[in-house]
């Protein structure tokens, strides 16, 4: 009992910050999304904002775009990360590791600006391509920013998240997977069989967990789509931000409803992740 009290006390400062900033913010959002805004004289509680949001074409478009961006970023990052990890696992080289760890330390905002400088039609990539004669004018460079397919956003996320998933996959590969692969080899498994039947299943739980984190993050992240995304439809967090910034305070409940919905969807992914973690503990 004394031990538990001690642990609780030790955790108290962190718990306080989390509960005030996170739970406090979230409950404020929930309250406002239900239309309770005494500042503008609204005190009755209703689900009108949710009805309005969920019934609107804008929300549906945004939701689809968000799922597409988060899904594509996660999928591409995961495949590239697994391939990179397989390529890197035998190299003890510090350089490759350093190059790979670099993006992890760079803020998303800076990454977005960096990608924009390289891939915009007036950027480095366009000028290099023109100079090499691949395209006539820099402006002929394909539009990768503010475009319908959100290429710029996905590129930024891939650049940022590949190293993260790679590190997780590498840790698994360099651990027991290497020994299991040797066993499989002496039992007659060729390279492809070893990957498919042994290595992949062994690193999959870690990789899946890491990509779920990436999905949940890219689903709820705001700054990269805000900087590099098209004006319509926007990604859900950008949509929520635009509603929030509206001069008309009566659109505040809708903004908060979108936020709560983002939180709910992300929570679903977190639950899936936790379940996976528990499954691993048992296995």
């Amino acid at each position, binding site marked *: 009992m004394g031990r538990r009290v001690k642990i609780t006390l030790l955790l108290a400062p962190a718990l306080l910050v989390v509960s005030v900033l996170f739970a406090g913010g979230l409950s404020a959002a929930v309250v406002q999304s239900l239309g309770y805004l005494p500042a503008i004289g609204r005190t009755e509680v209703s689900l009108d904002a949710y009805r309005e949001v969920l019934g609107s074409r804008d929300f549906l478009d945004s939701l689809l775009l968000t799922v597409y961006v988060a899904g594509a970023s996660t999928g591409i990052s995961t495949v590239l990360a697994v391939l990179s990890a397989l390529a890197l696992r035998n190299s003890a080289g510090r350089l490759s590791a350093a190059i790979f760890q670099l993006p992890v330390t760079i803020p998303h905002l800076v990454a977005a600006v960096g990608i924009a400088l390289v891939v915009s039609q007036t950027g480095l990539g366009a000028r290099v391509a023109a100079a090499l004669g691949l395209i006539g004018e820099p402006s002929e460079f394909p539009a990768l920013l503010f475009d319908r397919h959100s290429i710029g956003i996905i590129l930024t996320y891939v650049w940022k998240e590949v190293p993260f998933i790679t590190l997780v996959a590498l840790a698994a590969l360099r651990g027991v997977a290497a020994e299991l692969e040797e066993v499989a080899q002496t039992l007659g498994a060729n390279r492809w069989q070893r990957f498919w039947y042994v290595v992949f299943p062994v690193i999959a739980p870690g990789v899946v967990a890491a990509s779920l984190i990436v999905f949940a993050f890219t689903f709820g992240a705001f700054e990269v789509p805000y900087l590099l995304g098209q004006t319509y439809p926007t990604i859900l967090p950008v949509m929520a931000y635009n509603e929030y910034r509206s001069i008309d305070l009566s659109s505040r409940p809708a903004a908060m409803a979108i936020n709560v919905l983002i939180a709910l969807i992300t929570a679903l992914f977190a639950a899936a992740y936790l379940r996976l973690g528990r499954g691993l503990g048992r*296995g």
Partner: protein
Amino acid sequence: MSTRLEIQDLTHSYGGDRPALSGLTLSVEPGELVALLGPSGCGKTTALKIIAGLLSPTAGDVRIGGRSVLNVPPEQREAAMVFQKSLLFPHMTVESNVGFGLRMRGTPRGEMRERVERALRRVHMGGFATRKPAALSGGQQQRVALARALVTEPRLLLLDEPLSALDANLREGMRGLIKEVQREGKHTTVFVTHDQEEAVILADRIALVTDGHLRMYDRPEAFYDRPLNREIAEFFGAANFLHGQARNGTVETPLGALKLAIPATSGEVTLTIRPEAVRLEGGENSFSARVREATYLGTQVLYGLEASGGVALKAALPPHTRLTVGDDVLVRLPAESLWALGR
């Protein structure tokens, strides 16, 4: 499925100043179980990995069934390996683990099931087919690993310290199982161990390797009765060494002239005799000594004796020999148990 294994002049260097293996040459007869015995870091696991194909030797050759396999990848060598850790595939059931090698070869499902079942029964794990490895004890996991290696009827069975991660009581059972299964299937087997007791109990022949060199390759009893030199004798627990001059079939020692059943070549020699072979009686090769130390070991008593001229000897005698420190006794070193070590 018995195959001969030959290792010729095998040398391997990891890039340090001393090679892990140098010039290892030995052959394993079809169906024979050879123990590669040596302290950790002596190069024995390196040798095993080279045989399996997981490492390429710096120099030398490995021949399985008379053909060099240096250019054959591990998956085609048919040399199944069991490691120190069971290394079962954690995401597969016991059944899938054991069937793995057959599945990789495209064995038909029905035949696979039958052979897996038989292999599991052979290691007394018949009822565990649907379990996951995590639900098994360490000993059970190691038995499944053995079944997994055996099920494909490999040409070679390579065992890398398969018992060292087990508790003492489990080790004995597993040791028996390995011997039983190996005899039954007549698998040509190389067994790596640092435990001389294990090597003596299991092996048909023992290859003693230290510092990457083969020191002695012979039947287990030869390591006790006729060790090549003092280092080998000490590795096998010899405690008695006597210096002397060999002349006309006898050896002049501080204990007097001793007769040997196998005479030593003339010149300076070191004699050895196992503590168990020392007798408390008169006759040929006998002298008097005083008991200096007595250690009761349960099944025997180990006595420290001091003979004339301060020569110390160890004698292991049955527990009913009740000598006490200070007693004077007559000691005999039987000629057939005295052995002159090489120089």
